[in-house]
């Protein structure tokens, strides 16, 4: 298929960006979206132009590095996938595809489609861990039985890949699905209880400091999340936060 691409080009964080049109031809429907971008970049390099910078790494939907806002949706039109798993069979010959970076005040653009997601790092550094040293002298792994249900739910929360699609999809640029997932993983496990009060308070405080917006329950984040992280995690975080505040 032949496509027209409208892509956000921005030299660096300080430069003013703009949308630029490109054409690609003979795109196979079996290609992934990023392989289509590779074709474009190869074309640009061969004509001596600078290729489009975009984040990507594992190309199997797990590292969370790829982003892109495609035709107005984080990770594009398919559900339950990251941009690297999006395939061109979702598009038609002759389509015009608009490709922008994730947009949020807390995710400044570094170059073209690459954004800075360090805010997520700082939120996790604020409390996204259990304070246990890696001495190997902990108790036997089976000494605390954990119900399968709790373990599975914690796992569901822990599958978050930290890509930032939730923030990009939210009209308020809220990070509550991301933070909710992180808080939930530990809140659901007995190992996480000791520091539960401080964890949720510190992570929420950092989230606010980073300039993420609030949640107004539209659920766009859940729809666009490539890993199907549920809104329940936001509810759980709110519950944890309320109870932490009451405990002082």
């Amino acid at each position, binding site marked *: 298929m032949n496509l027209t691409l409208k892509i956000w080009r921005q030299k660096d964080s300080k430069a003013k960006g703009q949308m630029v049109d490109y054409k690609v031809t003979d795109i196979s429907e079996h290609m992934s979206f*990023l392989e289509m971008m*590779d074709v474009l970049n190869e074309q640009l390099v061969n004509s001596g132009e600078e290729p489009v910078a975009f984040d990507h790494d594992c190309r*199997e939907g797990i590292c969370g590095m790829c982003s892109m806002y495609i035709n107005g949706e984080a990770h594009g039109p398919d559900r339950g996938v990251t941009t690297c798993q999006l*395939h061109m069979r979702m598009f038609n010959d002759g389509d015009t595809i608009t490709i922008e970076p994730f947009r949020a005040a807390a995710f400044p653009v570094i170059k073209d489609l690459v954004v800075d997601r360090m805010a997520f790092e700082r939120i996790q550094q604020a409390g996204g*861990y259990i304070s246990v040293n890696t001495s190997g002298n902990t108790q036997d*792994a089976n000494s605390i039985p954990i119900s399968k249900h709790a373990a599975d739910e914690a796992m569901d929360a822990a599958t978050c890949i930290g890509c930032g699609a939730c923030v990009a999809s939210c009209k308020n640029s809220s990070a509550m699905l991301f933070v909710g997932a992180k808080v939930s993983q530990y809140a659901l*496990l007995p*190992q*996480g209880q000791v520091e539960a009060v401080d964890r949720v308070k510190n992570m929420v405080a950092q989230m606010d400091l980073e300039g993420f917006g609030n949640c107004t329950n539209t659920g766009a984040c859940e729809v666009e999340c490539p890993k199907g992280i549920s809104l329940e995690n936001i509810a759980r975080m709110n519950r944890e936060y309320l109870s932490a505040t009451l405990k002082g």
Partner: protein
Amino acid sequence: MALDSKVPKGSIKDKWTDYKNHIDLVNPANKRHIDVIVVGTGLAGGSAAATLAELGYNVKAFAYQDSPRRAHSIAAQGGINAAKNYQGDGDSTYRLFYDTVKGGDYRSREANVYRLAEVSANIIDQCVAQGVPFARDYGGLLDNRSFGGVLVSRTFYAKGQTGQQLLLGAYSAMNRQIARGKIEMFNRHEMLDVVIVDGKARGIIARNLITGEIERHSAHAVVVGSGGYGNVYFLSTNAMGSNATAAWKIHKKGAYFANPCYTQIHPTCIPRSGDYQSKLTLMSESLRNDGRIWVPKNMEDVMAIREGRKKPTDLSEDERDYYLERRYPAFGNLVPRDVASRAAKERCDAGYGVNATGEAVYLDFASAFERYGREQAKIHNITNPSDEKIYELGQAIVEAKYGNLFQMYEKIIDQNPYKTPMMIYPAVHYTMGGVWVDYNLMTTIPGCYCIGEANFSDHGANRLGASALMQGLADGYFVLPYTIGDYLSDDIRTGKIPTDTKEFDEAEKEVSDRINFFVNNKGTKSVDYFHKKLGKVMWDKAGMSRNAEGLIEAMAEIKAIREEFWKEVSVPGTADEMNPELEKAGRVADFLELGELFAKDALMRKESCGGHFREESAELDGPQKGEAKRNDEDFAFVAAWEYKGEPADAVLHKEELEFKDIELKQRSYK
């Protein structure tokens, strides 16, 4: 220099304990004055950085990704081995040690492997304490599954995302130390050289990938945990950015590179579909617990399937060739990876491949659906269940176990693997070879360590499934923190290493010169053009099976590609900005050297062992006819290569392997 593995004396069971009891320690007050650089933040680098910081050292950690959590360990799917014997099925430290040495085709160092097996149980305890949500059974205890090449269930897992969960565990431990200021984290930074002062590794030169700035970082020791070199094949299951640059730079500065030809071609990957393909996707080996591998028995059926006249589900049991079950009745679909890969290649080479390219076999879950379905019907007291009901119940169980893998497959291939068997084919996945290290995980450069996939030590010529995660975390959490202390105890009075010295000047100049060359070269061909060309030579001539003629050609061809690369490569953009093409150019330049050494090593090793199959060395008759033939008399050694300029001039050093605790045997899975 003679190679000294520094394996402690004493019985294999006591070596590590005795070692730990007698090494020099650094007291907590002195650790504050010692800096350590860790390059790479996957399971090995991440766990090492966290642990060293907890101990009190000042750690500087480097990742080319925008977060340590994105290192490619995150993509490991199936699980992590540990000799816990929770299933009571006869597992023990010795058995894990034995399976790993045998699985590695007797080409690994016994003492290292025993230590790995010994600390494996601690890893699970540690990870659970950190909040890693491993799969559990209904009683609330940890669940296990089985992997290839073993007869027990010792693999712990978190759905099909075990690597992700373990890496997030190590990352959380890192975050705790970053928050305390004990780890200084350098995201989007790439190490481009090591700096050696008075014979010791004392720092690195790194490039800030956002600004292009070249930075000097000093430390008392440098730890490289930068992963494997599978991307030398261009197409592999590695991430796009996975590269050998850090490992190759230390090699060029004096670290020997061991067994580069030992590559793991993983049997269950999604087949390639076209020239545009940028990477290959793994389907976890855990699927072989429940999936059966087959091709049609008759050539007419193969053609009918390729032409779309028949569907795989149309073929009766009699018309299918479950070739692994046929050839290896004892291990069946759970033979080790090298064996399974070669068997798939054998069938496809004979013309039985089931897709248009002729390079695919089926992985079929129909019998698992039925088996689990019947079991569930019994559990739920459903009498006389219909076939549909059985299928539905069975599908739910399979979905709970491997749901994310089935989804991933469907998104890529656009076929529903619950309705039709998956198509799979082997792909490059892991490299057992790597930087040579001694028992302390130190390279031949004093003060320079190498851990995880980047080193060579534990998997011999073939790695068993679920052992990479085990080794990465064992090295980082439990081994390196001891061994590095013994070395650093001499540095308590050294003081901060200055970076305004001639050694740093020279290393920085070398790095800058190369970068300037790339951006000013204005050649005619893209970096990927050369990378793909190299990959094709590697796959065709140093892939799943190799012979002397092909390897000699490969060496010459790679050299020619390298020469053309340095003339014709084109890198748009400048050096002082984010420039992904420039990053790739540096990495491919290193692969173009490594690839030639790889072929040279494969040529030297005139035996078949593990992932290295030399066509000239196969069993000619008897029950093992066609199987790989090892040659212990001439090749029971580690090949450690010393850099001498051109890869073809590398000098071979041998570390003879001694097997005192395990008898060397033909590896049979029949």
